């Protein structure tokens, strides 16, 4: 076995359910996500969780959803950014955020684009995750 493969096997495996709980068309099991995808999904989950949404853990989440209904000026964008960074540093120890860009088409847009660039700790893989949040129904 090549050394590279040995390291790959010894690498820590992250494995989680797919948030959509979709079905594997062949085995009919619930789909799973692993490694980078699992981390990515976790980051996305954290950002899109509102404070108070988690049972008995009201402190988990971010204010991104609430910001959707506010005008996004540079000050609130900065506030949102720090909110996201704070959430991830508190609840997602697997990533090291390099940059976070919060943008919108206009101050009154119903969309917020969040571009998150991070490294998965121990992997040295730079991941760019783009999350677009939209007001429900728009």
């Amino acid at each position, binding site marked *: 076995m090549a050394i590279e493969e040995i390291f790959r096997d010894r690498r*820590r*495996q*992250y*494995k*989680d*359910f*797919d*948030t959509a*709980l979709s079905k594997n068309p062949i085995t009919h099991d619930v789909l*799973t996500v692993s490694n980078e995808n*699992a981390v990515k*999904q*976790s*980051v*996305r*989950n*954290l950002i899109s*969780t509102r404070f108070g949404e*988690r*049972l*008995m*853990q009201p402190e*988990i989440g971010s204010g991104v959803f609430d910001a959707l209904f506010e005008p996004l000026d540079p000050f609130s964008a900065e506030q949102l950014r720090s909110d996201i960074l704070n959430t991830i540093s508190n*609840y*997602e*120890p*697997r990533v090291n955020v390099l940059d976070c860009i919060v943008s919108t088409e206009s101050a009154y847009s119903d969309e917020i684009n969040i571009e998150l660039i991070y490294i998965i700790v121990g992997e040295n893989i730079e991941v760019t995750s783009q999350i677009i949040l939209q007001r429900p129904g728009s």
Partner: protein
Amino acid sequence: MKPTNLTSINFDDIRESIKSYMRTREEFSDYDFSGSTLSYLIDVLAYNTYYSAFNANMALSEVFLDSASIRDNVISLAKVLNYTPRSTTAAKACVSLSVQTQIGVNGQYPLSVTLQKGPVCSGVGPDSNYTFNVLENVEVNVDASTGIAVFPEITVYEGDLLNYSYIVDTTVQQRFIVPNDKVDTSTLKVSTRPNVQSTLSDTYNIVKNITSIESDTRAYFLQETEDRRYEITFGDGVIGRELVQGEVVDIEYIRTVGALANNISVLKYVGTVIDINGTTTTQAALTVKEKSQFGAAQETVKSIKFNAPRYYAAQNRAVTAQDYANITKTIYPNARYVSAYGGESLNPPVYGKVYISIRTQTGAKLNNLSKKEIIRNLRPYSMASVDVVITDPNEIFVGTNILIVATTLASSYGDGTITQTTSDRLKNKALAALKEYGEEEDLNNFNKTFSLQKLANNILRSDDDIEDVLASVSLYKRQEYPELSGPRTFIFEYGTQLDCSCNTSPGTTILSSVFYTTDRPAVPQYFEDDGNGFLRTFTTINNKKTILDTNIGTYDCETGRVTFGPIELEGSSTLEQTLTSVDPNASLTSTINDFFEENSTVEGKIVRSEDVLSVLENTTTDGEDGTTTTDPDDTKEETTGSLIKSAGVDNTYIFIADPESGSSSTFNTGDGYTFVANAGWTLGPGFFTITTSGSGVFSFTGSATGGTGTGGTGTGGTIGTTAVTTVTSSINVGGSIPTTITVSIKPGTTSISPGSLLSGAVLSFFTPNLTVVSTGTGSGTTIIFPTGGVIGSPSLYTTPALNVIGFTPLYTTSTGSGLGNCFA
């Protein structure tokens, strides 16, 4: 893997337990990260488990009386203990009616009239109008000459008089439930008729003890059931008569609002009176003899949980002192708090007696009729040869003096001063906090502890603008004058240590209200501690304290026992004495001997000024033993008494006349009189002027110069020559004098629990003195703590008000005239 920590009902613990299971599986690994979907699923699982565990725990809690919280469950558990919770109680008032009847066809007034049961009068309460009813028809005779029928004392109950009927159907499981909530079960009347058409009925009585019931006894049992309603059950043919198919059960009761209808003192007649001729009268003169009171809400869950086991423990017989207390509560609903104790715990012990102290709902004392009634009702429960004595609560009033320091933020002007509105708000908050504290601690009950520290903390937390609270406490006790004349010793027991830390400063620990004694009937007197374990009496004239008697009682700093007397207090209703003050600017050259010292007295007499010389001429001194005698026949209009020096710093003296001598003398306003000392001390004229007869205190001022010497060595001093002193004003001390004496003490501790030392002791609050000051940053408003000193705030231990006669307890529900005979 075996499940771990199954007993946990904490969400986090359950969640951790699931995660620890996941760690043993290889399928998933992200359970540790809050953002993972698996973590969400674990949350749901943990919440579900938590919910089930809480439900199971809750359900199990409801099985036990200790932990049950839902009323229906508590009732159900109390039912097992044969305890029926007290229902809502209707407020009742006592009224008298006077009805003018009409002359009948026979030319005479009817023989009698009947007040129909149902509404009699109505009154306006704080929220609404309330109707008061009689439960039965009341018949009285008519005065044949005037045609007036008088209903002297009628007890009326607030509410709606309702009735309901059930037709007995033995083929089904039938329940007889009073179909209303807020029913006063003490007004419940149950009767049965053989069938619907019948007008004859049998009355059933409530029964709580089956031992005296036969198989045909017409009795019913009462118990609370769902939704605060009451259920009536009947006998089974063995214990009590069994109902028969087709019988009709009639129930009649009052549905009431409870305490809302208390304290209504104005009632309007709305009843119906029918005379023996069938004439209806709807007009009557109504007099309220006792305002509405005793209305109360249904017994609370907390009270049921407290009382039910104790009632069960008593087992319908009184053996221990606690049994007596529990049974007294059930046979006398007006008792709010009851304390019972054996006579052996008294000092000296009284064997064979049990003492019961009852605090009524209104705080009023029980009259003798009520006490006898309670003793009579307790007799069937009590052990042979044990006597019951009902005593009034050993009531100790707690007076608090509270100084509130407000913050600068409370200042509307920025200079440390606050507006009246802010001051009132803080006072109201503090008062509310005090009430809340008292209610939380249930302080008006027996055997409770008052903590000044907790009270101060409560007030401190009541408003953000309150920066600091300084509080002090005084305890008051009151005794009525004895009905019998003669000297008597008054004992005031506080059950707590006295603050004797200021032993060298007399008058800082104990102070009494004003009283009068038979030997000085016109002298308003007080007593205080002398700092050495004894009491002394004093009077005040022109704001100057003068010691009258020393060693007139004792006090014990450790036990809080103050013994005053023996002394005979004056209990007459009025005083006729008029005091006369003297113009201090008048030119007085009279002399008085400097021999006087504080507390010393010189006996002598008052004579008219122009007679002074003749008195002196007729005064002889025995050269051998030094006694001075005066022939009484040679003086006119004299009264004997004592001259004492005031404790004031400037020379003020007081003449206290002997009662027996003063009553025979007459003095006229404007006339000048002189005090002539017996023991060789001669005073000049013009010290004082007396306006009416009788003994009293007459103050005057004068210089302290003259001869020297002691009693028995001969006449000294000279007679002054000043003319009659001008009378400037009179102080009338006539009017009512107190029939009670109140004594306040400064307790040695701020945590007061008199019940530990005194049987039947109970604390009572009255409205505190509240002072609000404000701090600020402006000039002169900052309070500075001097080094090692305390803040220069108003003195907290200033002399309490002397005439604390009218207490206003905070927690009594009524200040009515008490439980009159009307209700007895």
